[in-house]
């Protein structure tokens, strides 16, 4: 799928927890994102990413934790199920079912956000994420690409160093013993950075163009950008302060808007001075249009028919509109494709098998992962 289609999907999935506290909608959204995360993960040929926490596990932690914290610190609500002695600071007082539910919803919101963004990490390769940084941040994109490339190799280097230290009698006894592991990797990294810089310079990476000389050449233009940026920040600051004042909210929004526009203009302007072109151009396919349309449609009923929910002052069942719930199911589309654990299950649509790029050595041909280059 096209990264932009994914971005839309994630925006839609993450909008739900920001727009409503209705637990029924939240649960549906959470389930849908978990299903998609699982399906996308099933398509990755390599194992789960290092340190990747599954959304379900995160949810199992976040919901009880949220409930526990809230029930202990908030003593509002009518259905009291336990009363802690008032002498205990903070948590002393009545414990109510309402605050328990409220806290669980808090946890659910966090879990849903987490789950939606987990899909992003799983579905869109790192370099595509980097490629969609605004043009103005090209230097940062290059730095990030170098770092992302360096991560696996320095993990290997850590392993090598660990072995090399082990064979000179090194034993891990305490924190101090990290030094023999850390220093060779750091020194090796610095040496490697020099070699890399040399290689980049040899291939024409703008060493003469940017920096000193560019700032001399663009001195005036840089100052204009800086001035506008400063103005934008002033607007944002004023807008932020105004919001805190009881009467300021009318002025706040226009100020924030002006600040945003100024910042956006600076980002655009700096970007227009960056000279580079992009090799990779993902192809927008039918499935991408479908996902994009369904993602937008999925959240419209929610926003129009806005059903917020609060358990206070007395617990009540949340309202549920079938139209909102059904619209959410549109977000399932990316999970139906492929041959992940879900695709091969009863819901499987038997879609084409596509491997995420970069993970499949045997797929040496172009066109996988929705990327294609028109040949001349």
């Amino acid at each position, binding site marked *: 799928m096209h990264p932009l289609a994914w971005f839309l999907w994630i925006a839609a999935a993450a909008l739900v927890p*920001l727009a409503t506290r209705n637990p029924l909608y939240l649960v549906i959204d959470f389930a849908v994102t978990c299903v998609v995360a699982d399906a996308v993960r099933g398509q990755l040929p390599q194992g789960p990413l*290092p*340190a*990747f926490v599954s959304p379900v596990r995160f949810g199992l932690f976040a919901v009880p934790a*949220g409930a526990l*914290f809230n029930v202990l*610190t*908030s003593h*509002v609500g009518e259905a009291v199920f336990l009363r802690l002695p008032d002498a205990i600071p903070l*948590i002393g007082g009545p414990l109510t079912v309402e605050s328990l539910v409220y806290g669980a919803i808090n946890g659910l919101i966090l879990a849903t*956000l987490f789950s939606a963004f987990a899909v992003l*990490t799983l579905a869109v390769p790192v370099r595509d*994420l*980097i490629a969609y940084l605004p043009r103005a941040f090209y*230097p*940062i994109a*290059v*730095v*990030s690409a*170098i*770092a*992302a490339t*360096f*991560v696996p190799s*320095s*993990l290997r280097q850590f392993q090598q160093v660990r072995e090399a230290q082990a064979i000179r009698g090194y034993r891990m006894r305490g924190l101090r013993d990290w030094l023999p592991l*850390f*220093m060779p990797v*750091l*020194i090796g*990294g*610095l040496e490697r*950075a*020099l070699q*890399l*810089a040399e290689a980049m*310079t040899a291939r024409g990476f703008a060493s003469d163009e*940017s*920096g000193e000389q*560019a*700032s001399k050449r663009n001195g005036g233009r*840089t*100052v204009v*950008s*800086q001035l506008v*940026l400063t103005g*934008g*920040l002033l607007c*944002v*600051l004023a807008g*932020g302060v105004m*919001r805190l004042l009881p009467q300021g*909210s009318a002025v706040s929004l226009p100020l924030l808007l002006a600040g*945003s526009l100024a*910042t956006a203009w600076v*980002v655009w302007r*700096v970007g227009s001075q960056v000279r580079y072109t992009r090799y990779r151009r993902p192809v927008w396919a039918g499935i991408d249009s479908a996902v994009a349309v369904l993602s937008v449609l999925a959240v419209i009923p929610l926003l129009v028919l806005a059903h917020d929910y*609060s358990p*206070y*002052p007395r617990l009540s069942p949340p309202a549920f509109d079938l139209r909102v719930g059904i619209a959410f199911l549109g977000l399932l589309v990316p999970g139906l494709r492929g041959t992940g654990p879900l695709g091969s299950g009863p819901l499987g649509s038997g879609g084409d098998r596509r491997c995420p790029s970069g993970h499949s050595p045997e797929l040496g041909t172009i066109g996988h992962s929705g990327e294609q280059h028109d040949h001349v």
Partner: protein
Amino acid sequence: MAARKAVRSTANALRWVVYGLTSLIGVVAFLYPFFIPSLTSSGGLAHAVDSPLFLGLLGGFSLVALLLEAQGEATSDAKRTALLGVLVGLNAVLGFLETAIPGPGGFSPTFFLIILGGYVYGGRFGFLLGSLTLFVSALITGGIGPWLPYRMLVAGWIGLGAPLVLALSRAFHAQGTRWELVLLAGYGAVWGLAFGALMDLWFWPFAIGPDTQHWQPGVGLGETLQRFLAFYIATSLIWDAMRAVGTVAMILLFGAPTVRTLRRFARRFFFTVAAGPAAYVAGERAAASGTATREARG
């Protein structure tokens, strides 16, 4: 020439204005959650609903402004770009260790390199090292979320502020002595604790929830602070204390050799080629000589 000089000094002055403004915006953003109750009690429910978004927005602005400000110098040539890329990658790996080591939760080895990187290679470098470390590890481990800009901003500040320690140690003539490390360790301890508190502020609006029912009219800053304290103690204190202790221990144990190594390489990375090549005009003089000088920076 004079005009160019004026342009440069204006640019320098504006740079400090940007730092000042972003810090102020940060202060507003961080204090914001404490005002939510008074806002909601005065009928401003709408504010409270979107407060996480608002915080994200403020954090985002500061981040964008500081990134634009820092990247110009810190990535001005291939050397600094490669150096930054490699250190960010290395630090992201240290971040893995954080999750790989069972044991003290919250201990994060990443702060160590951010602080020392900023200390040795300058504030802007430190800012990018901090914020990009979190960016890249989020890309790799799945930590992307609406909280990311906020986290990047705070981690960037850690690096950005590190040269303050340099100023301090110069003021106290502590350079090259043990006290230099102690000052660095103190800086690490402060940030170890502050980082968790600042991150909590972001999550907090989720936790307390924007709900008028929740707050009796007239409930003011006092109770809000008390609740925040509870929230902080419950969610962060142990972790933050671990982080602070871990960072201090790392700086005291590994700080000296690391600073020495980073300085050793500073000369190779930070010098500017000046004047020399200009002396060359194709084929003009058979034995013309150009000199490229290096200016070490530390």
